[in-house]
Protein backbone atom coordinates (compact mmCIF):
# COMPACT_ATOMS: atom_id res chain seq x y z
CA UNK A 1 0.00 0.00 0.00
CA UNK A 2 1.38 3.37 -0.91
CA UNK A 3 0.95 5.73 2.00
CA UNK A 4 1.93 9.20 3.00
CA UNK A 5 5.35 10.01 4.38
CA UNK A 6 5.60 11.70 7.73
CA UNK A 7 6.80 15.16 6.79
CA UNK A 8 9.01 17.21 9.03
CA UNK A 9 6.24 19.80 9.40
CA UNK A 10 3.85 17.02 10.52
CA UNK A 11 6.35 15.88 13.10
CA UNK A 12 6.96 19.39 14.34
CA UNK A 13 3.25 19.99 14.52
CA UNK A 14 2.94 17.06 16.92
CA UNK A 15 1.08 14.81 14.47
CA UNK A 16 2.61 11.75 15.99
CA UNK A 17 0.78 8.59 16.92
CA UNK A 18 1.50 9.31 20.59
CA UNK A 19 -1.03 12.13 20.48
CA UNK A 20 -3.54 10.48 18.13
CA UNK A 21 -6.92 9.22 19.24
CA UNK A 22 -6.57 6.15 16.97
CA UNK A 23 -3.43 5.01 18.80
CA UNK A 24 -3.77 2.62 21.74
CA UNK A 25 -0.63 1.64 23.63
CA UNK A 26 -2.00 0.49 26.97
CA UNK A 27 -0.36 -2.68 28.25
CA UNK A 28 -3.75 -4.35 28.67
CA UNK A 29 -4.70 -3.74 25.03
CA UNK A 30 -1.29 -4.86 23.88
CA UNK A 31 -1.47 -8.18 25.68
CA UNK A 32 -5.06 -8.73 24.52
CA UNK A 33 -4.13 -7.99 20.91
CA UNK A 34 -1.13 -10.32 20.90
CA UNK A 35 -2.16 -13.72 22.29
CA UNK A 36 0.77 -15.56 23.83
CA UNK A 37 2.76 -12.39 24.39
CA UNK A 38 2.88 -12.97 28.15
CA UNK A 39 4.32 -16.48 27.77
CA UNK A 40 7.78 -15.32 26.78
CA UNK A 41 7.44 -11.56 26.67
CA UNK A 42 5.65 -8.64 28.23
CA UNK A 43 3.83 -5.50 27.22
CA UNK A 44 5.55 -3.76 30.13
CA UNK A 45 9.05 -4.50 28.82
CA UNK A 46 11.50 -1.77 27.82
CA UNK A 47 11.92 -3.30 24.37
CA UNK A 48 8.35 -2.30 23.50
CA UNK A 49 9.18 1.34 24.16
CA UNK A 50 5.81 3.13 23.79
CA UNK A 51 4.64 1.20 20.74
CA UNK A 52 0.94 0.70 20.25
CA UNK A 53 -1.77 -0.29 17.83
CA UNK A 54 -3.24 2.07 15.25
CA UNK A 55 -6.93 1.21 15.33
CA UNK A 56 -7.49 3.10 12.09
CA UNK A 57 -4.86 1.39 9.91
CA UNK A 58 -4.47 -1.83 11.95
CA UNK A 59 -0.73 -1.31 12.23
CA UNK A 60 1.73 -1.95 15.05
CA UNK A 61 3.50 1.39 15.34
CA UNK A 62 6.07 3.28 17.34
CA UNK A 63 4.64 6.23 19.27
CA UNK A 64 6.79 8.53 17.13
CA UNK A 65 5.17 7.44 13.88
CA UNK A 66 2.54 9.61 12.28
CA UNK A 67 0.35 10.12 9.24
CA UNK A 68 -2.06 12.53 7.63
CA UNK A 69 -5.04 10.85 9.29
CA UNK A 70 -3.84 12.03 12.69
CA UNK A 71 -6.61 13.17 15.00
CA UNK A 72 -5.67 14.69 18.29
CA UNK A 73 -6.59 12.63 21.34
CA UNK A 74 -8.42 14.17 24.31
CA UNK A 75 -6.33 15.90 26.96
CA UNK A 76 -3.85 13.55 28.69
CA UNK A 77 -5.88 13.25 31.89
CA UNK A 78 -8.70 11.75 29.80
CA UNK A 79 -6.59 9.74 27.38
CA UNK A 80 -6.07 6.28 28.77
CA UNK A 81 -4.39 5.22 25.56
CA UNK A 82 -1.51 7.61 26.16
CA UNK A 83 -1.21 7.26 29.91
CA UNK A 84 -2.18 3.65 30.52
CA UNK A 85 -4.53 3.05 33.43
CA UNK A 86 -4.67 -0.18 35.42
CA UNK A 87 -6.58 -2.88 33.58
CA UNK A 88 -10.23 -3.23 34.61
Amino acid at each position, binding site marked *: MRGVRLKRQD*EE*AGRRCATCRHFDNSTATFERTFPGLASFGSAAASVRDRDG*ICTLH*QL*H*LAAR*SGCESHERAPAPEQASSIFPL*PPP
Partner: protein
Amino acid sequence: MSTHVHALPRDLQRSSNRNELFSKEDWWAVWLGLGLTLIAVGLFLNGSSLRWLAVVPGKWSAVPDAIADIRASWMRYVALFALWALLLGAGARALGWRLRQFLPAFAFVYAVSVLIFALGQWKQADHYNLEPPLVALLLGLLISNTNVLPRWMDAGFRVEYYVKTGIVLLGATLPFTLIVWAGPVAILQASIVSVATFGIIYFVATRLGLDRRLAATLGAGGAICGVSGAIAVAGAVGARKQDAPIAITLVIFWAVVMIFVLPLVARSLGLSTGIAGAWIGTSEFADAAGLAAAQTYGGYVAHGAPISGSPDAALSAFTLMKVIGRDVWIGIWAFVLSILATTRWERTSADRRPDAGEIWRRFPKFVVGFLLASLIITWVTASVSYAQFKSSITPDLVGPIKNLRTWAFIFCFLSIGLTTRLRELATAGWKPFWAFSSGVLLNVVLGFILSALVFGAYWSRL
Protein backbone atom coordinates in the same frame (compact mmCIF):
# COMPACT_ATOMS: atom_id res chain seq x y z
CA MET B 1 -3.07 27.02 18.69
CA SER B 2 0.40 26.36 17.37
CA THR B 3 1.88 26.77 20.85
CA HIS B 4 -0.45 24.10 22.15
CA VAL B 5 0.37 21.77 19.28
CA HIS B 6 4.09 22.14 19.91
CA ALA B 7 3.88 21.77 23.67
CA LEU B 8 1.99 18.50 23.95
CA PRO B 9 4.51 16.06 22.51
CA ARG B 10 7.34 17.52 24.59
CA ASP B 11 5.22 17.17 27.72
CA LEU B 12 4.49 13.60 26.80
CA GLN B 13 8.13 12.87 26.24
CA ARG B 14 9.22 14.34 29.57
CA SER B 15 6.50 12.44 31.34
CA SER B 16 7.55 9.24 29.59
CA ASN B 17 11.19 9.57 30.61
CA ARG B 18 10.27 10.26 34.23
CA ASN B 19 7.77 7.45 34.42
CA GLU B 20 9.85 4.81 32.71
CA LEU B 21 11.92 4.18 35.84
CA PHE B 22 8.78 3.00 37.60
CA SER B 23 6.47 2.00 34.76
CA LYS B 24 8.63 -0.56 32.98
CA GLU B 25 9.14 -4.09 34.17
CA ASP B 26 12.85 -3.99 33.35
CA TRP B 27 13.49 -1.18 35.80
CA TRP B 28 11.46 -2.88 38.53
CA ALA B 29 13.58 -6.00 38.05
CA VAL B 30 16.62 -3.79 38.54
CA TRP B 31 15.24 -2.19 41.73
CA LEU B 32 14.18 -5.53 43.20
CA GLY B 33 17.31 -7.47 42.24
CA LEU B 34 19.71 -4.75 43.30
CA GLY B 35 17.70 -4.04 46.45
CA LEU B 36 17.93 -7.68 47.54
CA THR B 37 21.63 -7.74 46.67
CA LEU B 38 22.32 -4.61 48.72
CA ILE B 39 20.31 -5.95 51.67
CA ALA B 40 22.33 -9.19 51.51
CA VAL B 41 25.60 -7.23 51.38
CA GLY B 42 24.53 -4.93 54.22
CA LEU B 43 23.61 -7.85 56.47
CA PHE B 44 26.81 -9.68 55.59
CA LEU B 45 29.03 -6.69 56.37
CA ASN B 46 27.29 -6.39 59.74
CA GLY B 47 27.95 -9.99 60.63
CA SER B 48 24.50 -11.28 59.69
CA SER B 49 23.01 -12.98 56.63
CA LEU B 50 19.90 -13.45 54.51
CA ARG B 51 20.36 -17.19 54.97
CA TRP B 52 17.42 -17.67 57.35
CA LEU B 53 15.04 -15.98 54.95
CA ALA B 54 16.34 -17.56 51.74
CA VAL B 55 15.09 -21.02 52.65
CA VAL B 56 15.12 -23.93 50.21
CA PRO B 57 13.79 -27.49 50.64
CA GLY B 58 16.36 -30.04 51.73
CA LYS B 59 17.29 -33.24 49.91
CA TRP B 60 15.08 -36.20 50.72
CA SER B 61 14.57 -39.88 49.95
CA ALA B 62 11.13 -40.57 51.42
CA VAL B 63 8.01 -38.38 51.34
CA PRO B 64 7.70 -38.14 55.16
CA ASP B 65 11.23 -36.69 55.26
CA ALA B 66 10.24 -34.01 52.75
CA ILE B 67 7.11 -33.10 54.70
CA ALA B 68 9.05 -32.97 57.95
CA ASP B 69 11.67 -30.73 56.36
CA ILE B 70 9.10 -28.20 55.16
CA ARG B 71 7.14 -28.37 58.40
CA ALA B 72 10.29 -27.67 60.43
CA SER B 73 10.91 -24.49 58.43
CA TRP B 74 7.32 -23.37 57.87
CA MET B 75 7.94 -19.96 59.43
CA ARG B 76 10.81 -19.32 57.05
CA TYR B 77 8.62 -20.22 54.08
CA VAL B 78 5.93 -17.82 55.29
CA ALA B 79 8.52 -15.07 55.79
CA LEU B 80 9.94 -15.68 52.33
CA PHE B 81 6.48 -15.45 50.83
CA ALA B 82 5.91 -12.17 52.67
CA LEU B 83 9.19 -10.78 51.31
CA TRP B 84 8.43 -11.75 47.72
CA ALA B 85 4.82 -10.60 47.98
CA LEU B 86 5.91 -7.23 49.34
CA LEU B 87 8.62 -6.61 46.78
CA LEU B 88 6.93 -8.06 43.71
CA GLY B 89 3.60 -6.56 44.78
CA ALA B 90 5.09 -3.07 44.95
CA GLY B 91 6.32 -3.42 41.40
CA ALA B 92 3.09 -5.00 40.23
CA ARG B 93 1.09 -2.08 41.63
CA ALA B 94 3.31 0.44 39.86
CA LEU B 95 3.03 -1.53 36.62
CA GLY B 96 -0.74 -1.27 36.76
CA TRP B 97 -1.73 -4.76 37.86
CA ARG B 98 -4.35 -4.86 40.58
CA LEU B 99 -2.96 -6.11 43.89
CA ARG B 100 -6.16 -7.92 44.77
CA GLN B 101 -5.59 -10.00 41.65
CA PHE B 102 -1.80 -10.16 41.70
CA LEU B 103 -1.35 -11.26 45.33
CA PRO B 104 -3.72 -14.28 45.36
CA ALA B 105 -2.33 -15.38 42.01
CA PHE B 106 1.22 -14.98 43.28
CA ALA B 107 0.32 -16.94 46.44
CA PHE B 108 -0.77 -19.78 44.14
CA VAL B 109 2.49 -19.53 42.18
CA TYR B 110 4.50 -19.55 45.40
CA ALA B 111 2.68 -22.53 46.92
CA VAL B 112 3.04 -24.63 43.77
CA SER B 113 6.68 -23.55 43.46
CA VAL B 114 7.40 -24.86 46.97
CA LEU B 115 6.05 -28.26 45.90
CA ILE B 116 8.00 -28.22 42.62
CA PHE B 117 11.21 -27.17 44.37
CA ALA B 118 10.73 -29.91 46.97
CA LEU B 119 10.08 -32.51 44.28
CA GLY B 120 13.31 -31.48 42.54
CA GLN B 121 15.18 -32.21 45.78
CA TRP B 122 14.13 -35.86 45.69
CA LYS B 123 17.24 -37.98 45.32
CA GLN B 124 15.57 -39.97 42.53
CA ALA B 125 14.38 -36.86 40.66
CA ASP B 126 17.08 -37.12 38.01
CA HIS B 127 16.24 -40.76 37.39
CA TYR B 128 12.69 -39.77 36.42
CA ASN B 129 13.77 -36.51 34.72
CA LEU B 130 11.82 -34.48 37.29
CA GLU B 131 13.99 -31.36 37.06
CA PRO B 132 12.05 -28.40 38.52
CA PRO B 133 11.99 -26.33 35.27
CA LEU B 134 10.46 -29.21 33.31
CA VAL B 135 7.97 -30.12 36.02
CA ALA B 136 6.96 -26.46 36.43
CA LEU B 137 6.48 -26.03 32.70
CA LEU B 138 4.48 -29.23 32.21
CA LEU B 139 2.31 -28.64 35.26
CA GLY B 140 1.65 -25.05 34.19
CA LEU B 141 0.74 -26.18 30.66
CA LEU B 142 -1.65 -28.76 32.06
CA ILE B 143 -3.36 -26.23 34.32
CA SER B 144 -3.67 -23.45 31.74
CA ASN B 145 -4.93 -25.70 28.96
CA THR B 146 -7.62 -27.30 31.08
CA ASN B 147 -8.99 -23.89 32.13
CA VAL B 148 -9.19 -24.73 35.81
CA LEU B 149 -8.04 -21.30 36.95
CA PRO B 150 -9.97 -18.03 36.52
CA ARG B 151 -8.57 -15.66 33.95
CA TRP B 152 -7.95 -12.82 36.41
CA MET B 153 -5.14 -14.87 37.94
CA ASP B 154 -3.00 -14.06 34.91
CA ALA B 155 -2.14 -10.90 36.86
CA GLY B 156 0.28 -12.99 38.93
CA PHE B 157 1.72 -15.15 36.14
CA ARG B 158 4.38 -12.67 35.00
CA VAL B 159 7.09 -14.67 33.23
CA GLU B 160 9.26 -11.72 32.26
CA TYR B 161 8.93 -9.95 35.61
CA TYR B 162 10.22 -13.01 37.44
CA VAL B 163 12.91 -13.97 34.96
CA LYS B 164 14.37 -10.47 34.80
CA THR B 165 14.47 -10.23 38.60
CA GLY B 166 16.17 -13.63 38.64
CA ILE B 167 18.72 -12.54 36.03
CA VAL B 168 19.67 -9.46 38.08
CA LEU B 169 20.16 -11.76 41.09
CA LEU B 170 22.15 -14.10 38.85
CA GLY B 171 24.49 -11.17 38.18
CA ALA B 172 25.26 -11.07 41.91
CA THR B 173 26.52 -14.65 41.72
CA LEU B 174 28.80 -14.07 38.74
CA PRO B 175 32.21 -12.41 39.19
CA PHE B 176 32.49 -9.31 37.03
CA THR B 177 35.89 -10.54 35.89
CA LEU B 178 34.15 -13.57 34.36
CA ILE B 179 31.79 -11.30 32.42
CA VAL B 180 34.75 -9.27 31.16
CA TRP B 181 36.65 -12.44 30.27
CA ALA B 182 33.83 -14.27 28.53
CA GLY B 183 31.78 -11.32 27.28
CA PRO B 184 33.74 -10.63 24.06
CA VAL B 185 33.60 -14.29 22.98
CA ALA B 186 29.89 -14.40 23.78
CA ILE B 187 29.29 -11.26 21.74
CA LEU B 188 31.33 -12.58 18.80
CA GLN B 189 29.62 -15.98 18.79
CA ALA B 190 26.15 -14.58 19.34
CA SER B 191 26.63 -11.96 16.62
CA ILE B 192 27.65 -14.57 14.05
CA VAL B 193 24.61 -16.69 14.86
CA SER B 194 22.19 -13.75 15.10
CA VAL B 195 23.17 -12.23 11.76
CA ALA B 196 23.16 -15.61 10.00
CA THR B 197 19.82 -16.63 11.51
CA PHE B 198 18.13 -13.33 10.78
CA GLY B 199 19.50 -13.50 7.24
CA ILE B 200 18.20 -16.98 6.51
CA ILE B 201 14.74 -16.33 7.99
CA TYR B 202 14.39 -13.03 6.12
CA PHE B 203 15.67 -14.58 2.89
CA VAL B 204 13.37 -17.63 3.02
CA ALA B 205 10.38 -15.55 4.11
CA THR B 206 10.71 -13.01 1.31
CA ARG B 207 11.38 -15.77 -1.25
CA LEU B 208 8.16 -17.43 -0.10
CA GLY B 209 6.40 -14.17 -0.86
CA LEU B 210 5.89 -12.89 2.68
CA ASP B 211 5.76 -9.19 3.39
CA ARG B 212 9.15 -7.71 4.33
CA ARG B 213 7.89 -6.38 7.67
CA LEU B 214 6.60 -9.81 8.61
CA ALA B 215 9.89 -11.34 7.43
CA ALA B 216 11.84 -8.93 9.67
CA THR B 217 9.54 -9.63 12.62
CA LEU B 218 10.04 -13.38 12.19
CA GLY B 219 13.78 -12.88 11.78
CA ALA B 220 14.02 -10.86 14.98
CA GLY B 221 12.01 -13.47 16.86
CA GLY B 222 14.36 -16.24 15.75
CA ALA B 223 17.66 -14.41 15.81
CA ILE B 224 17.62 -11.87 18.61
CA CYS B 225 15.34 -12.31 21.53
CA GLY B 226 12.23 -14.34 20.82
CA VAL B 227 8.95 -12.60 21.60
CA SER B 228 10.72 -9.47 22.83
CA GLY B 229 12.73 -9.22 19.62
CA ALA B 230 9.62 -9.75 17.51
CA ILE B 231 7.53 -7.04 19.19
CA ALA B 232 10.43 -4.58 19.26
CA VAL B 233 11.11 -4.95 15.55
CA ALA B 234 7.42 -5.13 14.58
CA GLY B 235 6.89 -1.74 16.23
CA ALA B 236 10.08 -0.28 14.81
CA VAL B 237 9.24 -1.20 11.21
CA GLY B 238 5.50 -0.53 11.47
CA ALA B 239 4.35 -4.11 10.86
CA ARG B 240 0.71 -5.11 10.44
CA LYS B 241 -1.18 -5.85 13.63
CA GLN B 242 -1.35 -9.54 12.77
CA ASP B 243 2.40 -9.97 12.14
CA ALA B 244 3.73 -10.10 15.71
CA PRO B 245 1.22 -12.78 16.82
CA ILE B 246 2.49 -15.06 14.02
CA ALA B 247 6.04 -14.67 15.29
CA ILE B 248 4.88 -15.15 18.89
CA THR B 249 3.20 -18.46 18.02
CA LEU B 250 6.30 -19.77 16.28
CA VAL B 251 8.63 -18.61 19.06
CA ILE B 252 6.49 -20.33 21.69
CA PHE B 253 6.27 -23.54 19.70
CA TRP B 254 10.00 -23.87 19.10
CA ALA B 255 11.05 -22.45 22.48
CA VAL B 256 9.00 -25.06 24.33
CA VAL B 257 10.28 -27.87 22.09
CA MET B 258 13.87 -26.72 22.70
CA ILE B 259 13.43 -26.62 26.48
CA PHE B 260 12.99 -30.39 26.39
CA VAL B 261 15.20 -31.30 23.41
CA LEU B 262 18.38 -29.30 23.97
CA PRO B 263 19.25 -30.63 27.46
CA LEU B 264 18.55 -34.22 26.36
CA VAL B 265 20.64 -33.94 23.20
CA ALA B 266 23.46 -32.15 25.07
CA ARG B 267 23.42 -34.93 27.65
CA SER B 268 23.51 -37.66 25.04
CA LEU B 269 26.49 -35.92 23.42
CA GLY B 270 28.22 -35.67 26.82
CA LEU B 271 28.72 -31.91 26.56
CA SER B 272 30.21 -30.12 29.55
CA THR B 273 27.90 -27.71 31.37
CA GLY B 274 29.73 -24.65 29.99
CA ILE B 275 29.47 -25.83 26.39
CA ALA B 276 25.85 -26.89 26.79
CA GLY B 277 24.97 -23.53 28.36
CA ALA B 278 26.63 -21.66 25.49
CA TRP B 279 24.83 -23.83 22.94
CA ILE B 280 21.49 -23.26 24.64
CA GLY B 281 22.26 -19.53 24.78
CA THR B 282 22.89 -19.49 21.05
CA SER B 283 19.98 -21.73 20.09
CA GLU B 284 17.10 -20.79 22.39
CA PHE B 285 15.04 -17.72 21.52
CA ALA B 286 13.62 -16.52 24.80
CA ASP B 287 15.50 -15.82 28.04
CA ALA B 288 12.96 -17.69 30.16
CA ALA B 289 12.98 -20.76 27.89
CA GLY B 290 16.76 -20.85 27.72
CA LEU B 291 17.11 -20.51 31.47
CA ALA B 292 14.72 -23.44 31.90
CA ALA B 293 16.85 -25.56 29.57
CA ALA B 294 20.16 -24.43 31.12
CA GLN B 295 18.92 -24.95 34.68
CA THR B 296 17.66 -28.40 33.71
CA TYR B 297 21.11 -29.29 32.39
CA GLY B 298 22.80 -27.93 35.51
CA GLY B 299 20.30 -29.98 37.52
CA TYR B 300 21.52 -33.18 35.86
CA VAL B 301 24.99 -32.50 37.26
CA ALA B 302 23.66 -31.52 40.68
CA HIS B 303 21.93 -34.90 40.81
CA GLY B 304 25.15 -36.74 40.01
CA ALA B 305 24.95 -37.29 36.25
CA PRO B 306 28.38 -38.00 34.71
CA ILE B 307 28.76 -34.59 33.04
CA SER B 308 31.84 -32.42 33.40
CA GLY B 309 31.59 -28.89 34.74
CA SER B 310 29.72 -27.30 37.62
CA PRO B 311 25.91 -26.99 37.66
CA ASP B 312 26.16 -23.21 37.65
CA ALA B 313 28.40 -23.14 34.57
CA ALA B 314 25.39 -23.98 32.37
CA LEU B 315 23.47 -20.99 33.69
CA SER B 316 26.51 -18.71 33.54
CA ALA B 317 27.37 -19.62 29.95
CA PHE B 318 23.74 -19.32 28.87
CA THR B 319 23.35 -15.92 30.47
CA LEU B 320 26.57 -14.55 29.03
CA MET B 321 25.62 -15.76 25.58
CA LYS B 322 21.98 -14.73 25.62
CA VAL B 323 21.94 -11.59 27.75
CA ILE B 324 25.35 -10.10 26.93
CA GLY B 325 25.72 -11.62 23.47
CA ARG B 326 22.21 -11.16 22.06
CA ASP B 327 19.72 -9.22 24.17
CA VAL B 328 21.73 -6.00 24.44
CA TRP B 329 21.70 -5.51 20.66
CA ILE B 330 17.93 -5.42 20.33
CA GLY B 331 17.79 -1.62 20.12
CA ILE B 332 20.42 -1.53 17.38
CA TRP B 333 18.52 -4.14 15.35
CA ALA B 334 15.32 -2.15 15.76
CA PHE B 335 17.03 1.11 14.76
CA VAL B 336 18.74 -0.34 11.67
CA LEU B 337 15.58 -2.10 10.52
CA SER B 338 13.51 1.05 11.05
CA ILE B 339 15.89 2.87 8.71
CA LEU B 340 15.47 0.14 6.09
CA ALA B 341 11.71 0.16 6.53
CA THR B 342 11.40 3.89 6.00
CA THR B 343 13.96 4.28 3.22
CA ARG B 344 13.92 1.02 1.23
CA TRP B 345 10.69 -0.85 1.83
CA GLU B 346 7.23 -0.13 0.47
CA ARG B 347 5.46 2.52 2.50
CA THR B 348 2.49 1.90 4.73
CA SER B 349 -0.25 4.27 5.84
CA ALA B 350 1.96 5.62 8.59
CA ASP B 351 5.55 6.71 8.56
CA ARG B 352 8.26 7.82 10.92
CA ARG B 353 11.73 9.25 11.09
CA PRO B 354 14.19 6.76 12.56
CA ASP B 355 16.12 8.15 15.51
CA ALA B 356 19.13 6.74 17.32
CA GLY B 357 17.40 7.31 20.67
CA GLU B 358 15.54 4.11 19.91
CA ILE B 359 18.69 2.13 20.74
CA TRP B 360 18.51 3.15 24.40
CA ARG B 361 14.72 3.31 24.66
CA ARG B 362 14.45 -0.35 23.60
CA PHE B 363 17.53 -1.46 25.52
CA PRO B 364 16.63 -4.26 27.97
CA LYS B 365 17.38 -2.28 31.12
CA PHE B 366 17.52 -5.30 33.41
CA VAL B 367 20.97 -5.94 31.90
CA VAL B 368 22.12 -2.79 33.73
CA GLY B 369 20.99 -4.39 36.99
CA PHE B 370 22.71 -7.67 36.07
CA LEU B 371 26.03 -5.89 35.53
CA LEU B 372 25.71 -3.67 38.62
CA ALA B 373 24.85 -6.64 40.85
CA SER B 374 27.95 -8.44 39.57
CA LEU B 375 30.10 -5.34 40.19
CA ILE B 376 28.78 -4.94 43.76
CA ILE B 377 29.53 -8.53 44.79
CA THR B 378 32.89 -8.52 43.00
CA TRP B 379 33.84 -5.32 44.85
CA VAL B 380 32.72 -6.68 48.23
CA THR B 381 34.67 -9.91 47.77
CA ALA B 382 37.72 -8.43 46.03
CA SER B 383 40.11 -8.75 48.98
CA VAL B 384 38.84 -12.12 50.20
CA SER B 385 40.98 -15.24 49.96
CA TYR B 386 39.64 -18.41 48.31
CA ALA B 387 39.40 -20.13 51.70
CA GLN B 388 37.40 -17.24 53.15
CA PHE B 389 35.19 -17.22 50.09
CA LYS B 390 34.32 -20.86 50.58
CA SER B 391 33.83 -20.64 54.35
CA SER B 392 32.07 -17.31 54.63
CA ILE B 393 31.05 -15.61 51.39
CA THR B 394 29.43 -18.64 49.79
CA PRO B 395 27.17 -19.68 52.70
CA ASP B 396 26.37 -16.22 54.05
CA LEU B 397 26.27 -13.93 51.03
CA VAL B 398 26.27 -15.59 47.60
CA GLY B 399 24.40 -18.72 48.70
CA PRO B 400 21.25 -16.91 49.91
CA ILE B 401 21.21 -14.73 46.79
CA LYS B 402 21.49 -17.88 44.70
CA ASN B 403 18.54 -19.39 46.56
CA LEU B 404 16.42 -16.29 45.92
CA ARG B 405 17.42 -16.44 42.27
CA THR B 406 16.32 -20.08 42.07
CA TRP B 407 12.91 -19.16 43.53
CA ALA B 408 12.48 -16.37 40.98
CA PHE B 409 13.28 -18.76 38.15
CA ILE B 410 10.81 -21.39 39.39
CA PHE B 411 8.09 -18.70 39.54
CA CYS B 412 9.02 -17.91 35.95
CA PHE B 413 9.05 -21.51 34.67
CA LEU B 414 5.67 -22.21 36.22
CA SER B 415 4.27 -18.97 34.77
CA ILE B 416 5.44 -19.96 31.27
CA GLY B 417 3.15 -22.96 31.41
CA LEU B 418 0.34 -21.07 33.12
CA THR B 419 0.23 -18.42 30.36
CA THR B 420 0.71 -20.69 27.35
CA ARG B 421 -2.81 -21.46 26.18
CA LEU B 422 -2.27 -23.35 22.98
CA ARG B 423 -5.79 -22.82 21.60
CA GLU B 424 -5.48 -19.04 21.88
CA LEU B 425 -2.30 -18.71 19.84
CA ALA B 426 -2.60 -17.16 16.40
CA THR B 427 -2.47 -19.46 13.39
CA ALA B 428 0.94 -19.05 11.83
CA GLY B 429 0.51 -20.59 8.39
CA TRP B 430 3.00 -22.79 6.56
CA LYS B 431 5.08 -20.10 4.90
CA PRO B 432 5.99 -18.33 8.15
CA PHE B 433 6.52 -21.74 9.74
CA TRP B 434 9.05 -22.84 7.13
CA ALA B 435 10.82 -19.50 7.13
CA PHE B 436 11.13 -19.48 10.91
CA SER B 437 12.04 -23.15 11.10
CA SER B 438 14.89 -22.67 8.61
CA GLY B 439 16.33 -20.21 11.10
CA VAL B 440 15.80 -22.62 13.98
CA LEU B 441 17.74 -25.31 12.13
CA LEU B 442 20.62 -22.97 11.33
CA ASN B 443 20.56 -21.63 14.90
CA VAL B 444 20.94 -25.08 16.39
CA VAL B 445 23.59 -26.38 13.97
CA LEU B 446 25.70 -23.22 13.86
CA GLY B 447 25.29 -22.75 17.61
CA PHE B 448 26.59 -26.27 18.22
CA ILE B 449 29.56 -25.85 15.88
CA LEU B 450 30.59 -22.58 17.53
CA SER B 451 29.93 -23.67 21.13
CA ALA B 452 31.39 -27.17 20.98
CA LEU B 453 34.00 -27.02 18.22
CA VAL B 454 35.20 -23.47 17.56
CA PHE B 455 35.00 -22.05 21.10
CA GLY B 456 34.60 -25.38 22.95
CA ALA B 457 37.85 -25.14 24.91
CA TYR B 458 36.85 -21.68 26.00
CA TRP B 459 33.35 -22.53 27.25
CA SER B 460 34.42 -25.74 28.98
CA ARG B 461 36.80 -23.70 31.19
CA LEU B 462 33.91 -21.59 32.52
